[in-house]
């Protein structure tokens, strides 16, 4: 709903419709809005039937990779005699992304409900919600919601009087972007350093505490409830582009734009109209220069690419980037791309867990070189070196943090090479001249 702004008429507010309404945070307020009816319905269904509905809806993971959720759930084999676990990934640390924060601080019961549905569907009795430690407000409201849900018997050893056990626990992280990577998250939850694990084994085989585990993003789990209530067809129809991308998607918009905030639109919405109509376009006197549509791990788009994009998993790929986490970062003509990219590289260098050489060394060296160029001390060969380092950082490590650092560097040099060259040739970046050029 464009939160914190007024809802825009072209938005489709399903998950975000109660943002800004404090009453929706409470159990009573949530029930008044139809809360926990989906869980009641789910508990009366066979888990396999829930998985089928989610499969049919076309819902795909909202945490970044877009893996089909129903298929992920179907990897969990019922009746194997082992405890199963659900982990909700609420680590949200991808720069540009803050949608899960809004979901948790405005509709915490929606997530309790989503976790309970997900857990039941995969045969788990326990769901852990791993929330980044800096999210003090979401942590507070989630803890309140869990407490209320236990007290009302909605979750616990006899969930909604069905005799089924569903525990939901909030687990507070302690500052580490890498713990958003699913295997690092499980290590962290177990009380270890947050180093990603080598896959296979995949979490569905050996995950949390060595048991079959499913990890889902906050938005993914929250979407399950309306799908169960309104049906797979209803969800599938919310698509303007292609049948592989269905439903609504939350986008958190930030950077140099008139109305930053969290928006919800149906899959396939034209990105151009999104940026100029919903988000209000650039601030006065400026022009957009570049967009990073899915958090800093995805390729930077030129404005031509951005304006031609349809907002769905395939649409962004067609225009040189990815949907990612839905964290839209808008960059205007007053900014130096070199500065932006150097700071992104520093982010990854800081957050590398340091267990792979290519990542530990690559992120650090790329940062040093980029900062040297930024400060007017670069040489032309540096650009080739950066491309070389990036190549060595891609596809060779335990997790994709390393690849993620290379992505903005490679796309940035390819699409904005002249800015790098000007700085290297001693022409400092000048916003006004850049705007005219």
């Amino acid at each position: 709903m464009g939160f914190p702004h007024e809802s825009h008429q072209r938005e489709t507010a399903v998950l975000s419709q109660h943002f800004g309404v404090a009453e929706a945070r409470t159990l009573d307020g949530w029930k008044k809005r139809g809360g926990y009816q989906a869980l009641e319905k789910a508990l009366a269904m066979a888990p396999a039937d829930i998985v089928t509905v989610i499969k049919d809806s076309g819902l795909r993971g909202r945490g970044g990779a877009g893996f089909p959720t129903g298929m992920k759930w179907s990897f969990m084999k019922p009746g194997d005699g082992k405890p199963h676990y659900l982990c909700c990934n609420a680590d949200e640390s991808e720069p540009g992304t803050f949608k899960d924060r809004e979901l948790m601080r405005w509709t915490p019961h929606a997530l309790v409900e989503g976790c309970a549905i997900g857990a039941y569907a995969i045969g788990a009795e326990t769901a852990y919600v791993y929330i980044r430690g800096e999210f003090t407000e979401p942590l507070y409201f989630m803890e309140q919601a869990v407490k209320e849900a236990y007290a009302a018997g909605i979750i616990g050893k006899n969930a909604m009087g069905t005799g089924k056990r569903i525990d939901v626990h909030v687990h507070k992280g302690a500052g580490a972007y890498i713990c958003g990577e699913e295997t690092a998250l499980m290590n962290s939850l177990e009380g270890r350093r947050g180093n990603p694990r080598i896959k296979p084994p995949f979490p569905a085989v050996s995950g949390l505490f060595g048991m079959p585990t499913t990890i889902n993003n906050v938005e993914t789990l929250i979407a399950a409830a309306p799908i169960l209530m309104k049906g797979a067809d209803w969800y599938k129809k919310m698509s303007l582009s292609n049948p592989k991308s269905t439903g609504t998607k939350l986008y958190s918009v930030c950077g140099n734009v008139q109305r930053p905030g969290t928006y919800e639109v149906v899959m396939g919405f034209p990105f151009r109209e999104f940026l100029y109509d919903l988000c209000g376009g650039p601030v006065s006197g400026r022009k957009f220069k570049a967009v990073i549509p899915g958090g800093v791990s995805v390729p930077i788009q030129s404005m031509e690419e951005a304006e031609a994009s349809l907002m769905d998993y395939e649409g962004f790929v067609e225009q040189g980037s990815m949907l990612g986490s839905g964290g839209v970062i808008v960059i205007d003509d007053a900014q130096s791309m070199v500065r932006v990219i150097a700071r992104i590289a520093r982010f990854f260098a800081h957050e590398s867990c340091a267990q792979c050489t290519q990542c530990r060394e690559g992120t650090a060296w790329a940062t040093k070189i980029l900062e040297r160029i930024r400060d007017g001390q670069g040489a032309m060969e540096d650009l080739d070196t950066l491309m070389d380092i990036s190549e060595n950082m891609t596809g060779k490590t335990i997790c994709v943090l390393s690849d993620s650092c290379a992505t903005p560097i490679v796309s940035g040099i390819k699409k904005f090479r002249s800015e790098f060259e000007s700085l290297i040739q001693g022409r400092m970046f000048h916003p006004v001249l850049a705007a005219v050029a």
Partner: protein
Amino acid sequence: MGGLESPDYASHDSGAHEPHTPVFTGAAKRELDELITRYPKKMAALLPALWIVQRERGWVSDGGMAEVAELLELTPAYVKGVVTFYTMYHQHPVAKYFIQVCTTSPCGICGADDVVKSLLRHTNTGELGVPSPDGKFAVIEVECLGACGFATPIMINEEFIESVTPENVPAILARFA
């Protein structure tokens, strides 16, 4: 973490050498006992236990780590290895008001660096990581706080404050006098 040297934000407080008095007595012990029941293995209560230590003492000392280690049947070295992985556990006493400012790119292009300058000036700290002469404030830069649409977000201890600008810094700091 990573291959870049990070600045050492240690304060010079002598509290680091005081003998450790146990954290986990009474209510805190009961709180930990309940937390342990949430997991099939005791070790999983490690991060929550460390959070309790930091809440009660303001930081996590070697003594605090040793106490947690004993309660969770781990070694102090193991606990230290975990503590050092995460940026939010303070391994030294910190200023009374510990200010964290996001300067990652999305905030950076919205003026986060000017917010840092304003904070350094108005807290009288002058330099990142260095406590103010009265020991009240310290300012550090941190990576994305997950509130990028509300640039620039800062945290003062556990309080999350959105939309900070160089201009509204004095009014915000006045609340922490």
